[in-house]
């Protein structure tokens, strides 16, 4: 069994902490993806598992064996690299068999395994090609064959699809999932592309600034993000955030007011909170019946529309006079919503929208931690509770 455990892994360079006290438990056969923005420490974490970097503190345990001080070759792992890293001076056969030849397997065994690996990645009949005679996709297959031929306990993949074109990338994603099923090994996968992470993984480990933010199945990360970072990072386009504070009536900000009972979430009046809602959980109020549990309508003005074919992304602003700012992301005072493609909506219109309470999140603005992933309406949250709260407050 090849469980991978990281215990308090910390990696410091001279003045930078690349990985900060990372604890992870990956079970045998799991497909775990490390996601995060570039420079967040996900690659360094993988390199510590591979043994290409020695952690400053902490332990790496693979299959119950403390491998922290073992060189990469003795860890029972293999790896696929972002830049594919085929040896340019070796042909396909030599590339795939490199590790086996180093370990002095006998010729027949090497042939048998190479053939099998090539079959798995559908690379038959190319054994004497040189890497520079192959397409990007073929090279990637060779790299994968080289990694699986040794039957590693753990399979590390460092952005293996990053250098492929978009179409091939989608195709290879499916291939990798098929491979995972076939091989029944642990796969640890690094990517900055959250779509890849969502589609392939059993669990996603979201990493930021060297710290593990959340490790959960993709949908859990999507529906119940543990903090503002995860909420903002997972999902494309990203979640809308509105900063505001708690009053006796619920959430209040310049543009958005949502009534609810603060005490139900142990919130005290005056606390700074951030409301988060995904674009697809905001509805035009004329379609409000689609929302499971709509909030009172909010007035906004449509700005830019981005028809995507299967949906329309509409940028709304609360202040009609506000200059539309086409910078990256959604600015304060703006709301990005996703509506049906056949919705009757035009630019520069007044619109009324509602949020779906069941899909509205609240985060503590100072710590960033999630408070709740749904906001119950005042009447159903238990009027008695609210009364009691008011009573005691007096």
């Amino acid at each position, binding site marked *: 069994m090849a469980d991978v455990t990281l215990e308090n892994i910390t990696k410091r360079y001279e003045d930078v902490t690349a990985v900060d006290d990372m604890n992870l438990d990956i079970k045998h056969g799991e497909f775990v993806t490390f996601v995060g923005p570039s420079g967040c420490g996900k690659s360094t974490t993988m390199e510590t598992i591979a043994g290409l970097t020695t952690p400053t503190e902490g332990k790496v345990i693979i299959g119950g064996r403390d491998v922290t001080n073992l060189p990469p070759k003795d860890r029972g792992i293999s790896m696929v690299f972002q830049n594919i890293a085929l040896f340019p001076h070796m042909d396909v056969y030599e590339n795939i068999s490199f590790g086996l030849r180093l370990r002095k397997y006998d010729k027949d065994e090497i042939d048998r395994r190479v053939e099998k690996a090539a079959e798995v990645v559908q690379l038959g009949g190319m054994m004497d090609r040189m890497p520079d005679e192959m397409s990007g996709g073929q090279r990637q297959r060779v790299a994968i064959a080289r990694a699986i031929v040794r*039957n590693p306990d753990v399979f590390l993949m460092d952005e293996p699809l990053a250098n492929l074109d978009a179409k091939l990338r989608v195709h290879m994603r499916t291939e990798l999932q098929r491979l995972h099923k076939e091989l029944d090994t642990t796969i640890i996968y690094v990517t900055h592309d959250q779509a890849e992470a969502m589609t392939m993984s059993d669990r996603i480990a979201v990493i930021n600034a060297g710290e593990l933010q959340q490790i959960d199945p993709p949908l859990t990360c999507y529906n119940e993000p543990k903090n503002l970072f995860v909420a903002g990072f997972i999902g494309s386009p990203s979640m809308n955030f509105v900063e505001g504070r708690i009053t006796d009536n619920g959430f209040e900000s310049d543009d958005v007011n949502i009534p609810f009972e603060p005490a139900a979430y142990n919130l005290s009046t005056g606390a700074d909170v951030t409301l988060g809602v995904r674009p697809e959980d905001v509805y035009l109020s004329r379609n409000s019946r689609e929302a499971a549990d709509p909030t009172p309508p909010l007035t906004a003005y449509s700005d830019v529309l981005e028809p995507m074919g299967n949906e329309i992304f509409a940028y709304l602003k609360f202040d009609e006079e506000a200059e539309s700012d086409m910078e990256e992301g959604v600015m304060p005072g703006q709301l990005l919503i996703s509506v049906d493609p056949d919705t009757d909506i035009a630019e520069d219109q007044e619109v009324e929208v509602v949020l779906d309470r069941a899909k509205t999140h609240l985060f503590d603005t100072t710590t960033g931690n999630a408070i709740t992933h749904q906001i119950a309406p005042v009447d159903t949250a238990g009027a008695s509770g609210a009364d009691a709260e008011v009573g005691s407050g007096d």
Partner: protein
Amino acid sequence: MATDQDTAAVDSDTATGGLLRPITTWMENLSEEAYAYLLLAPAFFFLFLVAFYPLLDTLRLSFLVQEGRTAEPFYGIGNYVDLLTGEALIRRQVLDIALTSSFPFIEMGAPFFRQALFVTITFAVASVVLETAIGFGQALVLDKEFRGRRWVRVAIIIPWAIPVVIQAMIFYLFFQPTVGFGTDLMQALGIFGATPLNTSRDSFIIVLVADVWKTSAFMALLILAGLQSVDRSLYDVAEVSGASTWQRFKMITLPLVLPALIVAMLFRTMDAMRIYGVIDATAGCSTVPSLTCVVVDTIFLPQSGVIGLAAAAAFFTAVVIGVFISIYLLFFADSEGGYF
């Protein structure tokens, strides 16, 4: 495939087994820094044994006694003083008049070591200037595309690649009055005397020409590298703006090649100041004394106990070269684009 899993892990342990295993494991676990020092150790062992230790030992020896001058074993800077004032027990003290009269800086009877210093520096400056000029010419020729360029390049490199002793032999035979026509030719032109290889001034020129013949190619190659790194489209731009060939050379080629040129000149200067072989094998060290000549001559003096003197001469040579390098670096540190 999953069934093979366990055997793979075992293989990897046994394959590299044996005695080496503890060593390789130890090496693999060294930190980046420790590993760097370990692999640099052999190189620095050689450099220490052959360069750093001898250099320091030369310095130490240079302060030791010159026999017969003092009873104390420690002689301080005495050897250096002796060398520069002409008090040293060096075999020859006087450069012949032909050289001193044509080089007014050095008066007759100047201490031999100062003559050597003068010869070395004059040689270095003259040879580097000539080699840069000729090397530039050769580089410009090689920079052009033409049929047979490969062979022209070979022809130009070959003198650089031949042994010093053979280079010396060519010029030795050429100016050997009984064999070569060089003496007759130069005498007819009124430049040389009847026995150029025994005359300091003539020999100096012979050695200079021999050096220029051999090492211009080195300059040419380095300058060529600079030329070929120039973006060709710049020439098109200049041409469109109406620059003549000469203006293009002056305003584009020269400034862009300058860094490579300076590096090449630095190398050549260092090398020229070590001049020894071609002198020893043509005119001989007594006719054209260079600093290295003085060191070698002193080491092999029949008197014992002049080791300190030889060491002083050797270390002094190193210092002179060091001074030259510093001058280069001071003047050109900026224009070199941070090579140093």
